[in-house]
């Protein structure tokens, strides 16, 4: 079967239309030709993206419960801005692709979940432009980007408008916040923020608050449990694999645990709080696993995850920022091509060549 040894596009009808004198059972049907395989599996990019979007919803709903109107505003605006900017980019840059691939919706929702609930609309718009225009389409559109778009936008906003990006609403403040509202009194610092400022003794939130999301933080990162539910769905659908989250979270636990054991509880946070706090779960399950920007091999993913974990722990413990998940993932994104280049899988039969008849 060596017939179709070319990559000709499918769908071009090749045989002639039925001649007029030949009708009925012996008529020539118009046959399509194309290279094998002639069947295709059910999985498509929009299906994958839709599942990621759905998997993010439990955590988004928890934030709506705790932050009310503010969370709804941030998540909706972010998703709509990203879709709008994507639409413009697709038109202007004539990139093949469509809004219906759901990738911009996922970026938008993720960006919203990475912002504080107090984020004003212009901040969200700036984030959407950086995510879609700079991080995605300037690199060639879907599949071409080196850095995760939502994270690139978050880090851009964090270094450009640090105050806006670290004004954390207290949980339970569900009312609509008009522009200009005095936020003093209804905001609080995150556990990692307290740690960085050396005010660890003021920390009131415990592990159960971190699990449920009863604390200040970015819109999507507060409830570890809700994120786990979404992550379980993605693992079950085999959209993400276990290597990156396991290596990422495991390394953070190991490094912070070591620091805790040596430095003592006065100076360091317990490792289980490190694991549950901040954006670790959101980053480890939903952003480090972004297919486009992570390595494609099992071994590569383990190294990638461990690298993310190590950088996160180092930034949290000794860096200038309270939280390091975003920086860690972006830095490892930059290393992905190299990891892929050096970690090619062993081709079938190569190691055992000349093994001969042994058994």
């Amino acid at each position: 079967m060596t017939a179709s040894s070319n990559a000709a596009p499918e769908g071009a009808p090749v045989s002639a239309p039925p001649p007029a004198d030949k009708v009925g059972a012996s008529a020539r049907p118009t046959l399509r030709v194309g290279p094998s395989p002639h069947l295709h599996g059910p999985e498509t990019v929009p299906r994958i993206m839709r599942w990621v979007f759905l998997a993010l919803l439990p955590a988004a709903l928890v934030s709506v419960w705790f932050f009310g109107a503010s969370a709804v505003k941030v998540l909706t605006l972010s998703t709509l801005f990203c879709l709008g900017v994507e639409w413009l980019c697709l038109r202007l840059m004539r990139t093949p692709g469509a809004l219906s691939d759901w990738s911009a919706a996922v970026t938008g929702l993720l960006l919203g979940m990475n912002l504080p609930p107090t984020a004003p609309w212009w901040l969200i718009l700036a984030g959407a432009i950086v995510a879609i225009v700079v991080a995605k389409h300037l690199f060639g559109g879907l599949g071409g980007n080196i850095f995760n778009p939502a994270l690139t936008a978050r880090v851009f906003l964090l270094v450009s408008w640090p105050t806006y990006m670290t004004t954390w609403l207290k949980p339970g403040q569900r009312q609509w916040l008009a522009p200009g509202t005095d936020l003093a009194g209804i905001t609080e610092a995150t556990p990692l923020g307290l740690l960085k400022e050396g005010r660890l003794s003021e920390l009131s939130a415990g592990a159960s608050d971190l699990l449920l999301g009863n604390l200040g933080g970015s819109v999507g990162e507060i409830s570890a449990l809700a994120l786990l539910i979404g992550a379980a769905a993605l693992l079950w659908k085999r959209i993400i694999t276990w290597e990156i989250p396991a290596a990422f979270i495991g390394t953070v636990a190991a490094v912070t645990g070591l620091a805790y054991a040596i430095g003592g509880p006065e100076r360091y946070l317990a490792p289980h709080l490190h694991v549950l706090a901040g954006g670790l779960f959101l980053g480890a399950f939903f952003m480090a696993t972004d297919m486009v920007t992570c390595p494609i091999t099992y071994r590569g993913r383990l190294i990638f995850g461990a690298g993310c974990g190590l950088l996160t722990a180092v930034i949290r413990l000794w860096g200038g920022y309270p939280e390091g998940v975003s920086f860690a993932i972006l830095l490892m994104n930059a290393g992905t091509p190299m990891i892929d280049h050096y970690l090619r899988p062993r081709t079938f039969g190569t190691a055992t060549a000349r093994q001969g008849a042994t058994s």
Partner: protein
Amino acid sequence: MPAPCRVVVPLRQHLGAPAKAIVAVGDRVAEGQPIAEPGGFVSAPVHAPIAGEVTFVGPRAHPGGFPCESVVIEARDGVGPAATDGAPPPWRLPGASADWERMTRAELTALIREAGIVGLGGAAFPTHVKLSPPAGKPIDLLVINGAECEPFLTCDHRVMLEETAAVVTGVRILKRALGVPRAIIGVEGNKPDAIARLGEACALDDGIEVVACRVKYPQGAEKQLINALTGREVPPPPGLPLDVGVVVQNVGTAAAVARAVTAGLPLYERVVTVSGSAIARPSNVRVRIGTPLRDIIDFCGGLASPPAKVVMGGPMMGASLTDLDVPVVKATSGLLFFTRHECPDSTPHACIRCGRCGEACPLCLQPSEIALRVEIGDLDAAQALHIQECMECGTCAYICPSNRWLVQQVRLGKAKLHDRKQQRSA
């Protein structure tokens, strides 16, 4: 199905050199009579599938999509299946006998070669070549492939059920021809009836073992089957199964060997799976080589709906046909009549680097990476990523969520590399 009144027999039905016609227009041939002799060592003779008169010798459309030297035989009054009276008796191989256990290895191999037997799994590699391993490559195991090569195909399953005795005799003959003490018949676990029946039939010969293996694609590929049954890994091309001491033969081939050696029957018919939603009565049919597709369609109740694509072989590696006037050849394991719904058009989208192609690749290659190199024309990089080792099973393109042409780019890359090599040597 009954023998057709007209057959078109291509002379290139096997890997290797095409056969050379030894009949001329006007010759009357008996059923089974040789009509072409092998064009080299890696080649096979071709036999007349029906008795009749040779009406044409020359190029005819081959199912592979190219013109091929063919012999057309038509039944005539007095000869052929239409009139049994006065037909010459069917031609049988001289020297064949049920007493094969007394024959030498060379005699068995010669008989198999004379019978024009080639691998019936789909690759159609001449069987006698596989039975003549070069000196210095000891063979200790015969693997019999009963793990249907591709989805949709069930012809091997039917052969195992309906011709169990012939299969087992064939395995014993092949074992003797190779001089190996042991044979394993690998059958996918979803065919317990075939496993049970083969097990019963093999009970008397303790050198044959029937092993159930995992149901997956591609399990019926030589390298995968050897790995599943023995744990041995065949080295990359030009590595062959005999490099790890194994020879693989299909169950259909084994049955054909038994018929040739014990009854002198040359290979001029085979079992073909006819399936797909567009055919009225999907079935497995035993057809003469050279039977035009239209005869088979009629025998299977005609077309239920206009097919969008007709595939010869399996859905993963088979070739789509341009018209229905081509004949069945020795390699035709299946004829699939797909509707539009079964094989919709696909437009490739951007690669999202999900890595599934690499995870699915049975040879642990990285199809997305290779395809990308071929696309940008960097053939050296593609070669460094082991493009030549790909067996083109199509799993990567099947699984790709972006519908990318992965295996297709690999084929293109291989063809370009081949061209480049020829240009350089010229």
